């Protein structure tokens, strides 16, 4: 079985992508990276793209990420937010890890936010939950359970009208 093809093919493995730690804010829509080839000051940006871009896109599938080569004299990364705002992050003569850490500080979701989201996802996936935001609204949707009283009236022993008010359940 041959080795995986391409430069640093590890970047394309699922394990590597899942280990990405930069989750951008929900307000970020577009991320644009400008850099130059054969330019010492762009080296950090190039490395950032080479090593981290796959991870970023994997963790943020709804963010549009673009790269532009040799269009501006200086490398930079810009973010376009959903309220029309544009945030420019200069990347001249910066290392890839510095850039990554800075973006995480400025536009990344904090650890607590990510934990909250993970918890919410677990709650949603739990089949024991019903109602708004879950996969089923009511337990009556499940076969074997009591049918929905909106379609089939409950037996009188289960109705408050009979139990509490001692009123006889009348047919319409």
């Amino acid at each position, binding site marked *: 079985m041959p080795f995986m093809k391409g430069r640093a093919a590890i970047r394309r493995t699922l394990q590597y992508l899942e280990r990405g730690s930069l989750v951008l804010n929900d307000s970020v829509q577009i991320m644009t990276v400008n850099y130059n080839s054969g330019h010492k000051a762009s080296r950090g940006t190039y490395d950032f793209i080479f090593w981290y871009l796959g991870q970023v896109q994997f963790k943020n599938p709804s963010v549009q990420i673009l790269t532009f080569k040799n269009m501006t004299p200086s490398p930079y990364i810009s973010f376009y937010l959903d309220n029309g705002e544009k*945030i420019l992050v200069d990347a*001249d003569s910066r290392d890839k890890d510095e850039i990554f850490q*800075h973006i995480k*500080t400025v536009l990344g979701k904090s650890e607590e936010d990510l934990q909250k989201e993970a918890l919410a996802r677990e709650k949603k996936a739990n089949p024991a939950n019903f109602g708004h935001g879950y996969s089923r609204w009511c337990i009556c949707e499940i076969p074997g359970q009591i049918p929905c009283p909106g379609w089939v009236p409950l037996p009188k022993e289960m109705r408050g009208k009979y139990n509490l008010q001692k009123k006889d359940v009348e047919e319409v």
Partner: protein
Amino acid sequence: MCSQLVRASQAVKFLITEFPPCLKLHNVTVLSVRWRKPRWVPKSQSKLFYVREPTAILAEEYEMLKPKYDAYRTEMKALRYFFLQANKAERRQEIARTEGIDAKKDEVQHIKALEINRKWNEECARLREERLLKEREKKEEIEYHKQLKKQQEDQITKTETESFVAQSLESSEKFITMENLDEEIEKLLDSKTDYNIGFRSKSQKQ
């Protein structure tokens, strides 16, 4: 036709379940199902060119009713819009409450983030200026050395050409012109070169 109806109603009964009493209105379950003529059957001959008479609209009645209807519809529209907005706002609040979103906190965080970014950009600008300065100095040095080299080469060329010119001037005096042609010929004829030479071991003339 009766049998068809019976068959159709039996077929429908097979399809639908018995609805609970609470859903029946005046003991009649009303369904709209096409169960006599299928939809692909063309219009009947008697109904092909049927044109209905438009309903008579009394002018006075219309004039009286129209503003009332307009007012009513405007009010209903306004109410609907109001409730829609109210519901939307409520829903937004509900979502924010359930997901723990705090708009103020987000804004404060955003401003902080912009401040951090501004400082970072300033630092980057400083680094860029340093780099550009170094590049400029390097360029200037290279230019200077180039100029120097060019000057030196120019000087060498100049001296060479001058010496060549001087040599040419010198040798031009020995040129054979029309005036001293006869004299030179006489000289040559008078002179005698002897090629009868013997070479020694070091190839010297005797």
